[in-house]
């Protein structure tokens, strides 16, 4: 059976530098998969090939059982939520407009849109008073929650998260993790999470893909990777988690 996201013999270069060569990878439907690795390992590139923001030079990426479209992506991409590092909130839009933008473009009724925004903000524990603020008036943690709300607006089947929880203090991050876990219980989706933080990966994901310099060192269930690291490099990454445990 096909998985919801599959990389088939994918190669990707930036100029002369090959990021991936002949990569094969499947990401399981309905699970939370974390792509982990140091910066430069290619994890963010991999993520952006899923919604077609980046296009492979060779091979193909299949999502929902079909190749990622070359053009007219918008309908395809609206089935995929997207939240990024530094939140990427639009500075000229208030919080409700940021979260509700895609709903407006989908011509939802004001009532429906309002209700959905309220629902998401409640799930992510955001004070309703924040609706009329601009992004810069919110704390970093609040902005990250808004970013998640925006990505979830259209109830996407896939949610792509590109280090969306980085840059906040550990206490706040733990709270956001908890809220995110709650959201995923209420509105399950296939989640691909890019992070360099092994704690975060272990906490949120059920599957791990460990990357180094464009190679997949190990892919499997979290327990499998943690208990039986495939090599020394994976072991080093995992040790950090054990150290805390």
């Amino acid at each position, binding site marked *: 059976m096909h998985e919801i996201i599959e990389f088939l013999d994918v190669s990707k270069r930036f100029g002369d530098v090959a990021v991936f060569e002949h990569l094969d990878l499947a990401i399981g439907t309905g699970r939370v998969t974390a792509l982990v690795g140091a910066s430069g390992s290619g994890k963010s590139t991999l993520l952006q090939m899923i919604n077609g923001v980046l296009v492979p030079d060779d091979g193909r990426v299949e999502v929902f059982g079909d190749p990622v479209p070359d053009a007219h992506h918008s309908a395809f*991409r609206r089935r995929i939520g997207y939240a990024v590092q530094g939140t990427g909130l639009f500075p000229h839009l208030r919080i409700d407009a940021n979260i509700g933008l895609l709903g407006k473009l989908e011509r939802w009724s004001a009532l429906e849109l309002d209700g959905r925004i309220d629902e998401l903000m409640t799930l992510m524990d955001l004070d309703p008073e924040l609706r009329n603020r601009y992004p*810069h008036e919110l704390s970093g943690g609040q902005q990250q929650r808004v970013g998640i709300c925006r990505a979830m607006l259209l109830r996407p089947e896939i949610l792509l998260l590109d280090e969306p929880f980085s840059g906040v203090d550990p206490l706040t991050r733990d709270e956001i993790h908890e809220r995110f876990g709650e959201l995923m219980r209420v509105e399950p989706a296939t989640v691909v999470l890019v992070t360099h933080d092994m704690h975060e990966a272990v906490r949120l994901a059920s599957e791990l893909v460990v990357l180094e310099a464009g190679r997949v060192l190990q892919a499997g269930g979290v327990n499998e990777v943690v208990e039986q690291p495939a090599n020394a490099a994976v072991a080093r990454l995992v040790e950090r988690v054990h150290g805390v445990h």
Partner: protein
Amino acid sequence: MRPSPGWSSECTVSISSGKTPAWLCAGPARRERGRRTAGAAIAGLCCALLGPLAAAQPIVIGSKTFTESYVLAEIMAQLLEAEGHEVERRFGFGGTRVVFEALRAGEVDIYPEYSGTITQAILTSGAEFGTEEFTAELESFGLEPLATLGFNNTYALAVTGDTAERLGLTTVSDLADHPELRFGVSHEFHDRTDGWPGVSTEYGLPQTTVGIEHGLAYRAMLEGALDVTDAYSTDGDLARFDFVVLEDDRNFFPSYFALPLVRRALAPEVKEILNRLADSLSDAAMRELNAEVSIERRTFGDVAGQFLRERSFVAAGQDERRANSLAANLLDNTIVHLKLTGIAVAAACVLGVGLALAVHRSRPLSRAVLYVTGLLQTIPSIALLALMIPLVGIGQVPAIIALFLYSLLPIVRNTITALLTIDPLLKRVAAGMGMTQSEQLRHVHLPLALPHLLAGLRIAAVVSIGTATLAAFIGAGGLGEPIVTGLALNDTALILQGAIPAAGLALATELVFELLERRLVPGHMMTSRLPA
């Protein structure tokens, strides 16, 4: 006075070929024709837009920007009005070249010109005034000289009474012994062969000279910043400022008999009426009329009307020309000014923003567009206005085109820069979350670029309001009209009648854009908010 910028003796007219004169000496005929075609296309477009301007067919009378020209034009206008003709006054053209071209193009029917100016600066065959050749050459332009008015307003060199006394100067020859004297002459005199180049050679004058606007030259003389300037024998200001005219002891300067220069197509009865003015003005009489304006501060209309009544050209009881009230003039000029800048900036906004949107994804194209619009900016405004004349004639259309070209740079540059500097992360998110190209543009790119786009528009609008005052030089009217006239008359009050409302308009524009920005842009993104 016969000063004005914009005429170069090198830009001479060849009529022997019977072709269009090459007003622009810059390029070969082929380029000239291309420009004309392009110009005609633009003009056609603009005429279509501004069509309703020309309804009736009054006789259009022009003048240059100095007292005598205004007075003579006004005399002709009132005489024709007294005879029941409808007259449109389009006074204050910025130079011989401008007003002559306007006459040739049929945008003006009549203006007062001088025999010497025609032979020296318009015709190139060297035909003597009054000869058949002279008339024939003008005929080839479709023009006709009417009877001379009597006086000879020739060029002269003038010094202050103090300078004359201190150095014992009485003739032009005397100047050769004083190389330390500082010369400043009107731009037209500076370049004309019958002006500085000729007189300095003839008399062996060692000094160099700078070009300066005539009204300002008199001021500079009074302030002691200049010693010698060009003047005109019927200039009313000479007595007012106690200037001494140096005798042309070698008879260098040709004669400048004033006459109405008209289009041949003008109705014979109109020419007949104007010919009644033949020999009606002596040198002294003309100097007196000029002084009435420049010293007694009477209006051109008053002075002209009085002259016509006293000489019985019109009946004594005949109603004097209604002088427009200050408020009415101000309102008219302001409306024209707003129209010029409004149309130009609006068009530049549509094209500029469109252009920026079209090219901003390509760096080389963006760079090319910025270079070209930047290049336009380097053309001095008066030169750009002058360049417009052979392409689209005179009046509001070329003024609007010139202002439009000037407005492009700030709008295009700010829009391109704003679009290029949008945070790439935001662009990626907008695309990645599934917005179409047009949705990205409308909901993300343009709103993010809006503060800088508005700033560019604002600069364009304010600069246009300033630049549009120069449009009066090519007969476009607006608030530049009192400024140009005031400069010619050395009349500060008149200059302020244009300058103050123009400054007011600029301030009001600032205010409007500030309100606009407040409405359209969230507070934290406003560019006009200065750091505390």
